[in-house]
Protein backbone atom coordinates (compact mmCIF):
# COMPACT_ATOMS: atom_id res chain seq x y z
CA UNK A 1 0.00 0.00 0.00
CA UNK A 2 2.05 2.88 -1.35
CA UNK A 3 1.74 6.31 0.24
CA UNK A 4 1.88 8.41 -2.93
CA UNK A 5 -1.83 8.15 -3.88
CA UNK A 6 -2.79 9.37 -0.43
CA UNK A 7 -0.43 12.32 -0.69
CA UNK A 8 -1.65 13.20 -4.15
CA UNK A 9 -5.25 13.04 -2.94
CA UNK A 10 -4.28 15.23 -0.03
CA UNK A 11 -2.69 17.76 -2.40
CA UNK A 12 -5.74 17.80 -4.66
CA UNK A 13 -8.11 18.34 -1.76
CA UNK A 14 -5.90 21.07 -0.39
CA UNK A 15 -5.83 22.87 -3.72
CA UNK A 16 -9.59 22.59 -4.15
CA UNK A 17 -10.02 24.04 -0.69
CA UNK A 18 -7.67 26.89 -1.49
CA UNK A 19 -9.51 27.73 -4.69
CA UNK A 20 -12.75 27.62 -2.73
CA UNK A 21 -11.38 30.11 -0.22
CA UNK A 22 -10.38 32.42 -3.04
CA UNK A 23 -13.59 32.24 -5.06
CA UNK A 24 -16.43 31.97 -2.55
CA UNK A 25 -17.83 35.02 -0.86
CA UNK A 26 -20.06 33.54 1.79
CA UNK A 27 -17.96 33.66 4.93
CA UNK A 28 -19.31 30.34 6.19
CA UNK A 29 -18.48 28.59 2.93
CA UNK A 30 -15.01 30.13 2.99
CA UNK A 31 -14.64 28.76 6.46
CA UNK A 32 -15.73 25.33 5.36
CA UNK A 33 -13.16 25.40 2.60
CA UNK A 34 -10.53 26.23 5.22
CA UNK A 35 -11.67 23.17 7.13
CA UNK A 36 -11.32 21.14 3.93
CA UNK A 37 -7.72 22.33 3.64
CA UNK A 38 -7.03 21.35 7.24
CA UNK A 39 -8.48 17.93 6.66
CA UNK A 40 -6.34 17.47 3.59
CA UNK A 41 -3.37 18.28 5.74
CA UNK A 42 -4.49 15.76 8.31
CA UNK A 43 -4.69 13.08 5.65
CA UNK A 44 -1.08 13.77 4.70
CA UNK A 45 -0.02 13.67 8.35
CA UNK A 46 -1.67 10.33 8.95
CA UNK A 47 -0.14 8.99 5.77
CA UNK A 48 3.28 10.08 6.95
CA UNK A 49 2.65 8.40 10.29
CA UNK A 50 2.02 5.13 8.52
CA UNK A 51 5.03 5.65 6.26
CA UNK A 52 7.47 6.31 9.07
CA UNK A 53 5.98 3.79 11.46
CA UNK A 54 5.65 6.23 14.35
CA UNK A 55 2.57 7.74 15.94
CA UNK A 56 3.80 11.34 15.89
CA UNK A 57 1.92 12.10 12.69
CA UNK A 58 -1.31 10.96 14.25
CA UNK A 59 -0.62 13.10 17.30
CA UNK A 60 -0.07 16.10 15.03
CA UNK A 61 -3.35 15.40 13.25
CA UNK A 62 -5.02 15.21 16.62
CA UNK A 63 -3.69 18.61 17.60
CA UNK A 64 -4.81 20.02 14.29
CA UNK A 65 -8.32 18.82 15.05
CA UNK A 66 -8.26 20.45 18.47
CA UNK A 67 -7.00 23.72 17.10
CA UNK A 68 -9.56 23.52 14.29
CA UNK A 69 -12.32 23.10 16.84
CA UNK A 70 -11.17 26.16 18.76
CA UNK A 71 -10.79 28.10 15.54
CA UNK A 72 -14.26 27.20 14.35
CA UNK A 73 -15.80 28.35 17.62
CA UNK A 74 -14.15 31.74 17.50
CA UNK A 75 -14.46 32.16 13.74
CA UNK A 76 -18.16 31.41 13.71
CA UNK A 77 -18.67 33.80 16.62
CA UNK A 78 -16.94 36.50 14.61
CA UNK A 79 -19.07 35.74 11.58
CA UNK A 80 -22.16 35.95 13.77
CA UNK A 81 -21.12 39.30 15.15
CA UNK A 82 -20.43 40.69 11.72
CA UNK A 83 -23.72 39.34 10.44
CA UNK A 84 -25.55 40.88 13.34
CA UNK A 85 -24.22 44.36 12.65
CA UNK A 86 -24.05 44.31 8.85
CA UNK A 87 -26.84 41.85 7.96
CA UNK A 88 -24.43 40.18 5.58
CA UNK A 89 -22.14 37.17 5.68
CA UNK A 90 -20.17 38.16 2.59
CA UNK A 91 -16.44 38.55 3.14
CA UNK A 92 -16.34 41.25 0.44
CA UNK A 93 -18.68 43.49 2.39
CA UNK A 94 -16.25 43.70 5.27
CA UNK A 95 -13.75 45.69 3.25
CA UNK A 96 -13.55 48.98 5.13
CA UNK A 97 -9.95 48.48 6.22
CA UNK A 98 -8.31 49.72 3.05
CA UNK A 99 -6.54 52.67 1.42
Amino acid at each position, binding site marked *: *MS*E*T*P*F*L*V*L*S*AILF*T*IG*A*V*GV*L*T*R*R*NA*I*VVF*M*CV*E*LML*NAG*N*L*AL*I*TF*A*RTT*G*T*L*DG*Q*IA*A*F*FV*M*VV*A*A*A*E*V*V*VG*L*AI*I*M*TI*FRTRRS*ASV*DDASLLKY
Partner: protein
Amino acid sequence: MIAFWILAPVMVVAALGMVLARKAVHCALLLAVVMISLAVLYAVQDAPFLFAVQIIVYTGAILMLFLFVLMLVGVDASDSVVETIRGQRLASVLLGLGFGVLLVLGVAQVSVGTVVGLSEANAGGNIEGIAAVLFSTYFLAFEVTAALLITAALGAMVLAHRERLTPKATQADLAAQRMRDYAEHGKHLGPLPPPGVYARHNAVDTPALLPDGSPAPTSLSRVLTARGSTLSPPGSATQVERIGGSDEDVAPRDDAPEGGAGR
Protein backbone atom coordinates in the same frame (compact mmCIF):
# COMPACT_ATOMS: atom_id res chain seq x y z
CA MET B 1 -6.37 0.26 -1.43
CA ILE B 2 -9.79 -0.65 -2.72
CA ALA B 3 -11.38 1.65 -0.21
CA PHE B 4 -9.03 4.38 -1.35
CA TRP B 5 -9.79 4.01 -5.03
CA ILE B 6 -13.50 4.03 -4.32
CA LEU B 7 -13.45 6.93 -1.92
CA ALA B 8 -10.88 9.16 -3.60
CA PRO B 9 -13.05 10.04 -6.62
CA VAL B 10 -16.02 10.55 -4.34
CA MET B 11 -14.04 12.93 -2.18
CA VAL B 12 -12.68 14.90 -5.12
CA VAL B 13 -16.11 15.24 -6.65
CA ALA B 14 -17.61 16.22 -3.31
CA ALA B 15 -14.86 18.78 -2.76
CA LEU B 16 -15.37 20.25 -6.23
CA GLY B 17 -19.09 20.31 -5.51
CA MET B 18 -18.39 22.25 -2.36
CA VAL B 19 -16.63 24.92 -4.35
CA LEU B 20 -19.28 25.03 -7.02
CA ALA B 21 -22.51 24.64 -5.02
CA ARG B 22 -24.45 27.84 -4.69
CA LYS B 23 -26.22 27.04 -1.46
CA ALA B 24 -24.23 26.94 1.72
CA VAL B 25 -26.24 24.05 3.06
CA HIS B 26 -25.21 21.93 0.11
CA CYS B 27 -21.61 22.85 0.80
CA ALA B 28 -21.95 21.69 4.36
CA LEU B 29 -23.45 18.39 3.35
CA LEU B 30 -20.75 17.80 0.73
CA LEU B 31 -18.15 18.63 3.34
CA ALA B 32 -19.70 15.96 5.54
CA VAL B 33 -19.23 13.48 2.70
CA VAL B 34 -15.55 14.40 2.42
CA MET B 35 -15.03 14.15 6.15
CA ILE B 36 -16.65 10.82 6.59
CA SER B 37 -14.69 9.48 3.63
CA LEU B 38 -11.56 10.81 5.22
CA ALA B 39 -12.45 9.07 8.44
CA VAL B 40 -12.61 5.83 6.52
CA LEU B 41 -9.22 6.52 5.01
CA TYR B 42 -7.85 7.16 8.49
CA ALA B 43 -9.17 3.77 9.55
CA VAL B 44 -7.57 2.23 6.49
CA GLN B 45 -4.26 3.72 7.51
CA ASP B 46 -4.16 2.16 10.97
CA ALA B 47 -5.53 5.16 12.82
CA PRO B 48 -8.71 3.91 14.50
CA PHE B 49 -8.60 6.58 17.22
CA LEU B 50 -8.48 9.40 14.72
CA PHE B 51 -11.20 7.67 12.74
CA ALA B 52 -13.45 7.97 15.78
CA VAL B 53 -12.36 11.52 16.53
CA GLN B 54 -12.91 12.54 12.94
CA ILE B 55 -16.45 11.24 13.04
CA ILE B 56 -17.31 12.52 16.48
CA VAL B 57 -15.52 15.87 16.59
CA TYR B 58 -15.43 16.93 12.99
CA THR B 59 -18.50 15.50 11.46
CA GLY B 60 -20.51 15.42 14.64
CA ALA B 61 -19.57 18.62 16.40
CA ILE B 62 -17.85 21.04 14.08
CA LEU B 63 -19.98 20.45 11.06
CA MET B 64 -23.14 20.65 13.15
CA LEU B 65 -21.92 23.97 14.47
CA PHE B 66 -21.56 25.11 10.89
CA LEU B 67 -25.08 24.07 10.10
CA PHE B 68 -26.34 25.75 13.25
CA VAL B 69 -24.75 29.05 12.26
CA LEU B 70 -26.08 28.63 8.75
CA MET B 71 -29.57 28.35 10.20
CA LEU B 72 -29.00 31.54 12.21
CA VAL B 73 -27.67 33.44 9.24
CA GLY B 74 -30.32 32.20 6.89
CA VAL B 75 -30.51 28.92 5.06
CA ASP B 76 -31.92 30.32 1.88
CA ALA B 77 -29.11 32.82 1.31
CA SER B 78 -27.39 31.59 -1.79
CA ASP B 79 -24.31 33.25 -3.26
CA SER B 80 -24.72 35.36 -6.33
CA VAL B 81 -22.56 34.05 -9.14
CA VAL B 82 -21.31 37.50 -10.12
CA GLU B 83 -17.68 37.98 -9.11
CA THR B 84 -17.19 41.42 -7.55
CA ILE B 85 -13.41 41.58 -7.59
CA ARG B 86 -12.22 41.89 -11.15
CA GLY B 87 -10.07 38.98 -12.29
CA GLN B 88 -10.24 37.28 -8.91
CA ARG B 89 -11.97 34.16 -10.13
CA LEU B 90 -9.75 33.64 -13.15
CA ALA B 91 -6.60 34.35 -11.18
CA SER B 92 -7.73 32.03 -8.39
CA VAL B 93 -8.40 29.17 -10.75
CA LEU B 94 -5.15 29.60 -12.66
CA LEU B 95 -3.08 30.03 -9.54
CA GLY B 96 -4.90 27.13 -7.91
CA LEU B 97 -4.18 24.92 -10.89
CA GLY B 98 -0.52 25.91 -10.90
CA PHE B 99 -0.26 25.43 -7.19
CA GLY B 100 -1.97 22.05 -7.39
CA VAL B 101 0.29 20.85 -10.16
CA LEU B 102 3.36 21.95 -8.28
CA LEU B 103 2.11 20.33 -5.07
CA VAL B 104 1.27 17.07 -6.77
CA LEU B 105 4.63 17.12 -8.47
CA GLY B 106 6.28 17.77 -5.14
CA VAL B 107 4.54 15.09 -3.12
CA ALA B 108 4.84 12.58 -5.95
CA GLN B 109 8.57 13.05 -5.65
CA VAL B 110 8.57 12.16 -2.01
CA SER B 111 9.60 8.60 -1.59
CA VAL B 112 10.85 7.30 1.68
CA GLY B 113 11.61 3.93 0.30
CA THR B 114 9.77 1.23 2.06
CA VAL B 115 6.62 1.94 3.98
CA VAL B 116 7.22 0.88 7.58
CA GLY B 117 3.62 0.47 8.61
CA LEU B 118 2.20 0.90 12.06
CA SER B 119 1.78 -2.70 13.06
CA GLU B 120 4.68 -2.42 15.44
CA ALA B 121 3.70 0.93 16.92
CA ASN B 122 0.13 -0.21 17.29
CA ALA B 123 1.15 -3.49 18.83
CA GLY B 124 -0.26 -2.55 22.22
CA GLY B 125 -3.32 -0.94 20.68
CA ASN B 126 -3.56 2.30 18.76
CA ILE B 127 -5.22 4.32 21.53
CA GLU B 128 -2.71 3.15 24.12
CA GLY B 129 0.12 4.02 21.74
CA ILE B 130 -1.20 7.51 21.12
CA ALA B 131 -1.79 8.02 24.82
CA ALA B 132 1.75 6.95 25.62
CA VAL B 133 3.19 9.50 23.19
CA LEU B 134 0.66 12.23 23.95
CA PHE B 135 1.14 12.16 27.70
CA SER B 136 4.89 11.91 27.58
CA THR B 137 6.48 13.67 24.61
CA TYR B 138 3.60 16.02 23.83
CA PHE B 139 2.46 16.62 27.37
CA LEU B 140 3.19 20.32 27.38
CA ALA B 141 1.52 20.85 24.03
CA PHE B 142 -1.48 18.96 25.30
CA GLU B 143 -1.78 21.22 28.34
CA VAL B 144 -1.42 24.31 26.20
CA THR B 145 -4.20 22.97 24.02
CA ALA B 146 -6.43 22.93 27.08
CA ALA B 147 -5.69 26.58 27.65
CA LEU B 148 -6.39 27.25 24.00
CA LEU B 149 -9.78 25.62 24.17
CA ILE B 150 -10.78 27.55 27.27
CA THR B 151 -9.67 30.77 25.67
CA ALA B 152 -11.59 29.98 22.52
CA ALA B 153 -14.73 29.25 24.53
CA LEU B 154 -14.36 32.52 26.42
CA GLY B 155 -13.69 34.40 23.21
CA ALA B 156 -16.76 33.01 21.55
CA MET B 157 -18.83 34.00 24.55
CA VAL B 158 -17.46 37.53 24.54
CA LEU B 159 -18.05 37.87 20.83
CA ALA B 160 -21.58 36.51 20.98
CA HIS B 161 -22.55 38.60 23.96
CA ARG B 162 -24.81 41.52 23.24
CA GLU B 163 -25.28 44.46 25.54
CA ARG B 164 -28.89 45.23 26.35
CA LEU B 165 -29.41 48.86 25.39
CA THR B 166 -33.09 49.18 26.34
CA PRO B 167 -34.79 47.66 29.36
CA LYS B 168 -36.43 44.34 28.76
CA ALA B 169 -40.11 44.72 27.96
CA THR B 170 -42.30 43.27 30.69
CA GLN B 171 -45.59 41.51 30.17
CA ALA B 172 -47.44 44.64 31.17
CA ASP B 173 -45.49 46.65 28.61
CA LEU B 174 -46.32 44.18 25.90
CA ALA B 175 -50.02 44.26 26.78
CA ALA B 176 -50.01 48.04 26.78
CA GLN B 177 -48.24 48.02 23.42
CA ARG B 178 -50.90 45.72 22.00
CA MET B 179 -53.67 47.99 23.21
CA ARG B 180 -51.89 51.01 21.73
CA ASP B 181 -51.54 49.27 18.41
CA TYR B 182 -55.22 48.44 18.43
CA ALA B 183 -56.16 52.02 19.27
CA GLU B 184 -53.92 53.58 16.68
CA HIS B 185 -53.81 51.11 13.82
CA GLY B 186 -56.79 48.90 14.55
CA LYS B 187 -54.52 45.88 14.83
CA HIS B 188 -56.26 42.71 15.98
CA LEU B 189 -55.99 42.35 19.71
CA GLY B 190 -56.34 38.63 20.08
CA PRO B 191 -54.12 35.75 18.93
CA LEU B 192 -53.64 35.02 15.23
CA PRO B 193 -55.94 32.49 13.61
CA PRO B 194 -54.66 28.92 13.46
CA PRO B 195 -54.20 27.07 10.17
CA GLY B 196 -57.21 25.62 8.51
CA VAL B 197 -58.39 22.18 9.53
CA TYR B 198 -59.96 20.17 6.79
CA ALA B 199 -60.87 16.63 6.33
CA ARG B 200 -57.80 15.80 4.36
CA HIS B 201 -55.46 18.62 5.37
CA ASN B 202 -54.72 20.03 8.75
CA ALA B 203 -51.02 20.84 8.33
CA VAL B 204 -49.55 24.30 9.04
CA ASP B 205 -49.32 25.04 5.30
CA THR B 206 -53.10 25.07 4.95
CA PRO B 207 -54.66 28.50 5.42
CA ALA B 208 -57.88 29.04 7.28
CA LEU B 209 -60.80 30.61 5.44
CA LEU B 210 -62.36 33.94 6.23
CA PRO B 211 -66.17 34.22 6.40
CA ASP B 212 -66.30 35.30 2.78
CA GLY B 213 -64.48 32.14 1.70
CA SER B 214 -61.10 33.78 0.95
CA PRO B 215 -57.94 32.42 2.69
CA ALA B 216 -56.76 34.21 5.85
CA PRO B 217 -53.11 35.18 5.28
CA THR B 218 -52.41 35.63 8.98
CA SER B 219 -53.20 31.98 9.62
CA LEU B 220 -49.99 30.91 7.91
CA SER B 221 -46.34 31.25 8.97
CA ARG B 222 -44.59 34.07 7.18
CA VAL B 223 -41.70 31.77 6.35
CA LEU B 224 -43.93 29.31 4.55
CA THR B 225 -45.57 32.12 2.62
CA ALA B 226 -42.20 33.46 1.62
CA ARG B 227 -41.15 30.05 0.39
CA GLY B 228 -44.35 29.69 -1.57
CA SER B 229 -44.88 26.20 -0.16
CA THR B 230 -48.45 26.72 0.98
CA LEU B 231 -51.62 25.18 -0.25
CA SER B 232 -54.39 27.35 -1.56
CA PRO B 233 -57.78 26.44 -0.11
CA PRO B 234 -59.78 26.85 -3.30
CA GLY B 235 -57.29 24.61 -5.07
CA SER B 236 -57.59 22.04 -2.33
CA ALA B 237 -61.34 22.32 -2.52
CA THR B 238 -61.47 21.50 -6.20
CA GLN B 239 -59.06 18.66 -5.56
CA VAL B 240 -61.35 17.39 -2.92
CA GLU B 241 -64.37 17.67 -5.18
CA ARG B 242 -62.61 15.89 -7.96
CA ILE B 243 -61.53 13.03 -5.74
CA GLY B 244 -64.52 12.74 -3.47
CA GLY B 245 -67.36 14.32 -5.47
CA SER B 246 -69.46 14.64 -2.30
CA ASP B 247 -70.82 17.63 -0.32
CA GLU B 248 -67.68 18.04 1.59
CA ASP B 249 -66.89 21.16 -0.37
CA VAL B 250 -69.25 23.00 1.99
CA ALA B 251 -67.48 21.77 5.06
CA PRO B 252 -64.28 23.73 4.69
CA ARG B 253 -66.23 26.92 4.23
CA ASP B 254 -68.17 26.39 7.41
CA ASP B 255 -65.37 24.83 9.34
CA ALA B 256 -62.70 27.29 8.68
CA PRO B 257 -63.97 30.18 10.76
CA GLU B 258 -65.23 27.79 13.36
CA GLY B 259 -61.95 25.97 13.38
CA GLY B 260 -60.18 29.30 13.75
CA ALA B 261 -62.46 30.40 16.50
CA GLY B 262 -62.78 27.04 18.09
CA ARG B 263 -59.11 26.68 18.71
